[in-house]
């Protein structure tokens, strides 16, 4: 018995040894890079007069950070908890609110004061004090509201060392509680201020004033004053937009670009009109800076707050690139020692494309692309060929269909070959003497395909509607595009990024398309662009006159190699874009899934007589008997995946054929349950015929869920079990049996027999955020599963550890199959963390793409950070090692060859001499 265990242990250890593919120390950052982001700006504070100039920011992603003034790089960053717990409600830097309420820095050794204070979340609300020099958390207190649901709308403000918690009860009253900011002690009881005029959409908190719009007047209330008097201010016209508080000026709000004060003690300059305002100091005087964007030029102006005279030293205007979108002035500061000149002021803008832009001396000093904190889709696009290779490529492609003129073809091919090489020699010669044609923009940027296909353009689509073209090796941003007024679809479905034409069709340029929804009228929007240059192509933005319900990619057209897009609109009509690809849509199947009712519908598309029509062919309800189930996950197979092996070899050397149904889609539904708390169902549905191939039910299991389905019939759902906090990985494999029903074609309509199902569950010692299988060009390389964990690491798990055929009892059959005995716990060795210490904060998704090498798979992990690397699941069997010693090998080769020649000569001489004896 002991021996058996020993054997098992040994075999597992050996297997793990075999799979370890850790990096060497000198390979760190050689194949990978990481982009670190903070997210879209919420509040900021530029401080140039601190002994250590810095920019303190809080973001919509729940991050507080300090940026370097000169470069915009991160000095430190603290990623707070996930939303809603980490949602930052207030960032208060000491000495910022207004002069009188300054707390001053805390005395040494005490923990009463603070550099910076944040309030986050609502139930509980956490108040934290930070050391701004190194980003360390110094103290923290929390507050649990009585009514957690209402607390979501709570507001916080800070005044004179006291933190106020304002809880509105709509159309009734305001509850205001004051706490000592650094200790959390309540200063007294909660005061209820009667205010029946408050409503959710029309109110705002400006400093200590709670201001609401009511028709043509503003109603406001000073929450700190003892009197509790309601102030009414009349407006010239009914405001069109919503109210915005003016940070830094107590009781001032921005209404349609105008400043209006509801505070008697705070006057504002009349007649100002701008899109954004901010308050700062210049020459020891308080000034109000404001900015506007007009015709691509940003103008920055400022007035002194006390006498409303313009500050001419600060006025500047600069061209603003369109890909930033519209800017909003967030904060600014001026160096005090250089009195009189406005050149030392730094203005910080947040833009509608979620960038952070720093402007100094009339030009953009630096910018941060924070849209990358929310990547929603990614594609690796092949780079174009160099010109000379391009002509070779077109020669190889030479039309070979015409057999009658075969001989002439040979002659012409030969001639073409000769001319190509002549051209190559000429271009080489011209290049050497420096007279060659100037390289194109892409070539100058080094964007030429390499021989292994490892160098690609990484196209990233972000939630803000900004698209990036990034070099996957250097991480350089080659181009950016911004699509204003385009948003994601309903049901939390994001915009789609589709490659319509790859770079394989030289001299045609590759073509990408973005599908989204018009933010205004909800109709579909198509944007077509060249993924190498980032320029609009073939019409650019196209507004459709219908809402998109679903889409599908068609095959390539013969004319221009564009893959058509089949669109299903909300009235179940079908359209194809571009038009000339319409015949390819004939015989397509489409399905749609309703998330809330868990209903599936299948459609058949027919093209006849020049008209495209769709027929509703099947329906499936996954809602359960009481329609409580809701779809929480859908996963189809990757269409570009190749299956190299059609079956699995068993211990007795027979073949178990895989159930390779390309039309299989996995749906996961979840519903609350009285006895089991939560029930999760997995359905494998053939979406062509609508038949449910397999169902599995997990009890006491709930989301979050990561689902991945592979073409080999291996879906791998991951679910988190609530009751004992275990993370469950369930793997399922489908097999057709020992014989194949039809070994030449697969048709879902021919009703293949129900597959054999192998399944197994494993426990992972970590929380799984996302799952993705590696993919390679031909599918010969082993499959590994990339597991993205909540702690931000990416673990490469060999498939044979997740194999559902791992035998429970150590049998000879299992051993001969190469399966390791079943152990429920999966190991996570540190060598298999492919991002070693480069943690990806808030890891959300992993995308994989094949490279030109069969062994290598390109990986990009997105979240708050971006991590790009490559993995080789079966090691780089088709590549020489990095440290391959070319010199030694060539020396040995030359020495051996010359040695053998010399020895041959000597031997023949000796033979001759012997013969003469």
């Amino acid at each position, binding site marked *: 018995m002991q021996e058996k265990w020993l054997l098992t242990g040994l075999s597992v250890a050996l297997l793990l040894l075999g799979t370890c593919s850790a990096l060497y120390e000198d390979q760190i950052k050689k194949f990978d890079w990481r982009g670190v982001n903070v997210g879209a700006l919420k509040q900021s504070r530029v401080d140039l007069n601190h002994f250590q100039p810095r920019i303190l920011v809080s973001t919509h992603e729940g991050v507080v950070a300090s940026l370097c003034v000169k470069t915009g790089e991160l000095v430190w960053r603290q990623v707070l908890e996930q939303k809603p717990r980490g949602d930052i409600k207030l960032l208060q830097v000491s000495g910022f609110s207004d002069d009188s309420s300054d707390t001053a820095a805390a005395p040494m050794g005490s923990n009463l004061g603070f550099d910076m204070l944040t309030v986050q979340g609502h139930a509980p609300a956490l108040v934290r004090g930070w050391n701004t020099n190194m980003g360390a958390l110094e103290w923290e207190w929390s507050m649990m509201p009585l009514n957690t649901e209402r607390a979501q709308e709570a507001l916080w403000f800070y005044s004179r060392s006291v933190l106020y918690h304002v809880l509105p009860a709509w159309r009734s009253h305001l509850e205001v509680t004051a706490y000592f900011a650094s200790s959390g002690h309540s200063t007294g009881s909660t005061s209820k201020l009667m205010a029946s005029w408050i409503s959710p959409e029309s109110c705002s908190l400006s400093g200590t004033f709670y201001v609401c719009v009511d028709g043509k007047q503003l109603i406001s209330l000073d929450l700190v004053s003892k009197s509790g008097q309601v102030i009414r201010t009349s407006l010239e016209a009914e405001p069109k937009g919503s109210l915005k508080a003016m940070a830094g000026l107590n009781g001032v709000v921005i209404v349609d670009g105008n400043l209006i004060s509801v505070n008697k003690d705070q006057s504002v300059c009349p007649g100002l009109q701008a899109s954004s305002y901010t308050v700062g100091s210049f020459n020891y005087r308080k000034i109000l800076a404001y900015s506007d964007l007009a015709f691509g030029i940003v103008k920055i102006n400022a007035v002194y707050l006390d006498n409303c005279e313009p500050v001419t030293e600060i006025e500047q205007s600069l061209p603003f690139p369109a890909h930033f979108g519209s800017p909003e002035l967030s904060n600014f500061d001026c160096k005090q020692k250089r009195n009189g000149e406005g050149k030392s002021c730094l203005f910080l803008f947040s833009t509608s494309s979620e960038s952070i832009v720093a402007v100094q001396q009339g030009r953009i000093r630096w910018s941060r692309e924070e849209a990358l904190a929310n990547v929603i889709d990614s594609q690796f696009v092949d780079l174009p060929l160099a010109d000379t290779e391009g002509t070779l490529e077109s020669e190889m492609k030479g039309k070979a269909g015409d057999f009658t003129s075969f001989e002439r073809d040979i002659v012409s091919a030969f001639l073409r070959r000769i001319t190509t090489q002549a051209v190559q020699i000429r271009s080489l010669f011209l290049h050497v003497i420096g007279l060659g044609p100037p390289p194109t923009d892409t070539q100058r940027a080094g964007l030429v395909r390499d021989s292994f296909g490892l160098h690609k353009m990484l196209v990233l689509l972000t939630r803000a509607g900004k698209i990036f073209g990034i070099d996957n090796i250097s991480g350089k941003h080659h181009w950016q595009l911004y699509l204003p007024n385009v948003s994601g*679809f*309903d*049901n939390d*479905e994001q915009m789609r990024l589709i490659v319509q034409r790859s770079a394989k069709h030289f001299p045609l340029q590759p073509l990408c398309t973005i599908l989204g*929804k018009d933010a205004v009228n909800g109709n579909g929007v198509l944007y077509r662009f060249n993924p190498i240059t980032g320029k609009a192509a073939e019409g650019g933005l196209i507004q459709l006159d219908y*809402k*998109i*319900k*679903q*889409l*599908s*990619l068609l*095959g390539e057209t013969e004319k221009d190699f564009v893959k058509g897009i*089949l669109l*299903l609109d*909300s009235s179940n009509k079908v359209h194809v874009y571009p038009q000339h690809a319409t015949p390819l849509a004939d*015989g*397509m*199947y*489409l*399905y*749609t*899934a*309703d*998330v809330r009712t868990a209903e599936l519908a299948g459609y058949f598309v027919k093209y006849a007589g020049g008209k495209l029509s769709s027929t509703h062919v099947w329906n499936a309800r996954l809602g359960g008997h009481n329609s409580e189930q809701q*779809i929480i996950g*859908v996963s*189809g197979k990757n269409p570009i995946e*190749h*299956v190299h*092996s*059609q*079956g699995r*070899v*068993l211990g007795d*050397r*027979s*073949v178990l054929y895989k159930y*390779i149904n*390309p*039309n299989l889609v996995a749906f996961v539904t979840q519903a609350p349950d009285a006895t089991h708390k939560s029930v999760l169902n997995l359905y494998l549905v053939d*979406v*062509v015929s609508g038949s449910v191939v397999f169902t599995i039910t997990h009890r006491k299991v709930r989301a979050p869920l990561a689902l991945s389905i592979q073409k080999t019939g291996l879906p791998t759902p991951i679910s988190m079990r609530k009751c004992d906090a275990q993370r469950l990985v369930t793997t399922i494999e489908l097999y057709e049996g020992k014989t194949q029903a*039809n*070994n*030449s*074609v*697969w*048709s*879902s*309509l021919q009703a293949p027999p129900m597959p054999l199902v192998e399944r197994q569950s494993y426990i992972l010692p970590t929380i799984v955020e996302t799952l993705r299988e590696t993919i390679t060009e031909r599918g010969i390389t082993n499959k590994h599963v990339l597991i993205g964990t909540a702690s931000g690491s990416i673990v490469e798990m060999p498939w044979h550890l997740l194999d559902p055929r791992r035998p429970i009892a150590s049998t000879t059959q299992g051993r001969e199959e190469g399966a390791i005995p079943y152990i429920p716990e999966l190991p996570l060795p540190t060598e298999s963390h492919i991002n070693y210490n480069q943690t990806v904060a808030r890891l959300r998704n992993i995308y994989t793409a094949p490279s030109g090498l069969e062994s290598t798979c390109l990986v990009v992990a997105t979240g708050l950070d971006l991590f790009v690397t490559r993995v080789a699941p079966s090691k780089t069997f088709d590549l020489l090692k990095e440290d391959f010693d070319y010199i030694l090998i060539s020396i040995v080769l030359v020495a051996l060859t010359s040695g053998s020649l010399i020895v041959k000569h000597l031997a023949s001489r000796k033979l001759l001499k012997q013969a003469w004896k």
Partner: protein
Amino acid sequence: MSAKQNSKKFKWALDFNVSKNADIPSPLGYNPSALVNQSEVVRDQRLVIKKSWDLALGPLKNIPMNLFIMYMSGNSISIFPIMMVGMMLIRPIKAIFTTQVTSKMAEGAQGTGQRIVYFLGNLANVALALYKCHSMGLLPTHASDWLAFVQPQTRLEYYGGGVSFV
């Protein structure tokens, strides 16, 4: 030539090289007709046949030895069993191709029979080697051995879709 010169120069010299009279009678008891013994010839012939049968039956006699070697080397795939199986396979095949040469050494009345037996014996050895290959799993006789050449099925239907956008 020198001898002739010698004979001319020295008249009195005796030439021993010149053969003596060939008509000298045979010694007593010498019977030239008794030189070939008929029974001896018959016995030699029998010996040749026996020897060539030995040769022809050689491969068959090897079989028990081969069986023993096969049993001893086991079914694991490593260098020595592979070498043995290779030798076992190649030797009889070589022998079959050189049957003509081998049989020339022992031509006789039963030549055809011997050749057939020799051939069959070698075939038996080849069969034995193949059986060994089979039991070692070296022969592509299972479906799994041809799995790499199975073409993927072509799909007839294509689908698209997902969660509804509206």
